[in-house]
């Protein structure tokens, strides 16, 4: 029984994180963007600096009519947001926050699990795009899928480099094996991983598939109300997951001063910092064109990732 309660508690914790953190990131984005662009941003909801703006947004979404286009494939259309969102929820289970089992579930092939399940998310976009019965949606869906397929490879390769360095696929194991000099050693891999992750999330500057000035809102054009909110939630959950994973893999997770006591805090702090970077990048970089997008993945990121693997292998052989 004890084990069951333990599992339940862990899952509950993950769920809470899943529900809270993306909102935090969203709110941060509002404020950070506003400040960076020299404006105020939402200031009224909830009083202090508009802290309840996202809650208000949620209420707004919930109130809106849930429209399904007449020609659409209803089932698929309605299932799509769930398919897009669910992988991130599952992935959160495997991300360790602190030492000594401070993790949803310690999986033997945790890294592999995380990457595999994140790959499923693309189905949501494709389903949404196709089922909307809208040319822009379909095109957006296809673009999303193409982009995700293209960037999955450098991401996997960069992650493989870390796994090689640590000699394990388990995420807590990887963090446990971390030394401070890993960060410079795996720097290139980290940058590749983070960039590819950004592209997987279709965040600017890789937001080609959902660029409103080109194809309205890509696969999500026809979505309204709560379902649209779920897609947005998936995006912010994705930011959390990406930043968490980058932290765990490349920045040493809970490692830091007084790691024994406040290790989890270190993880959260690093994740938050990365989330800030994500927002920062959105504000600062222009959008890539579709062909540039693909070219970037195949001609820059993948070679870099391969070079990183080679470097890791060499160092690994030399030091062992």
């Amino acid at each position, binding site marked *: 029984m004890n084990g069951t309660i333990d599992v339940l508690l862990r899952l509950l914790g993950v769920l809470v994180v899943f529900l809270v953190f993306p909102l935090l990131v969203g709110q941060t984005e509002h404020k950070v963007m506003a400040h960076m662009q020299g404006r105020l941003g939402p200031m009224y909801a909830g009083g202090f600096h508009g802290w309840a703006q996202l809650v208000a947004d949620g209420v707004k979404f919930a109130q809106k009519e849930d429209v399904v286009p007449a*020609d659409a494939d209803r089932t698929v259309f309605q299932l799509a947001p769930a398919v897009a969102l669910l992988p991130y929820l599952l992935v959160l289970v495997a991300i360790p926050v602190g030492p000594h089992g401070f993790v949803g579930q310690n999986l033997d092939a945790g890294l592999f699990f995380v990457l595999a399940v994140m790959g499923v998310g693309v189905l949501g976009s494709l389903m949404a795009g196709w089922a909307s019965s809208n*040319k822009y949606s379909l*095109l957006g869906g296809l673009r999303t899928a193409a982009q995700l397929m293209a960037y999955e490879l450098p991401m996997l390769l960069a992650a493989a480099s870390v796994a090689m360095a640590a000699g394990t696929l388990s995420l807590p194991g990887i963090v446990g094996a971390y030394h401070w000099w890993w960060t410079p050693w795996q720097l290139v891999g980290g940058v590749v991983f983070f960039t590819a992750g950004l592209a997987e999330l279709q965040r600017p500057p890789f937001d080609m598939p959902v660029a409103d000035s080109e194809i309205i809102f890509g696969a999500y054009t026809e979505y309204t109300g709560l379902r649209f909110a779920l897609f947005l939630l998936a995006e912010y959950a994705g930011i959390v997951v990406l930043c968490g994973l980058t932290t765990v893999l490349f920045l040493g997770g809970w490692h830091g001063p007084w790691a024994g006591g406040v290790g989890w805090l270190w993880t959260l702090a690093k994740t938050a910092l990365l989330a800030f970077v994500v927002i920062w990048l959105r504000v600062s970089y222009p959008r890539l064109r579709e062909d540039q997008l693909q070219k970037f993945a195949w001609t820059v990121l993948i070679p870099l990732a391969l070079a990183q693997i080679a470097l890791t292998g060499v160092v690994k052989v030399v030091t062992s």
Partner: protein
Amino acid sequence: MHLAYPAVLASLLFCVGVYGVLARRNAILVLMSVELMLNAVNLNLVAFDVWLRDTLHAGQALTLFTITIAAAEIGLGLAIVLLVYRNRGSSDIDRLTGLAEPRPGSSGGPLVPGAAADEDTADENATPHGTTDTKATEKANEKAEASA
């Protein structure tokens, strides 16, 4: 666990795949059925590997290889199907009978004149709202219009 469970499940999945391969008209659906057959085999391999407690893990290694080959196969298969679709305006495999023995009476094989019937079904296949705007379908439509 009883070995018969995975074995029977694999057999049934395989036969479902066989049915799909034999009965489906769309080439992509046939490819899906082939995937089902491959997966059935994979299940069998894994089950027997676990049963035998093989020190070499031959079954699992072979499964990994099969999965890899399946990925390669699907890539090539789809490329071929797309090419056929681009050239013929159809991916129905029972229409791709270019290798049939020409009847003594008819003037040519089924694929020679781009047969009007082919064009009609190509239009039927198109989604009512013109789902895609790829160049391939544009080309097919142009061909249909030109012959109409």
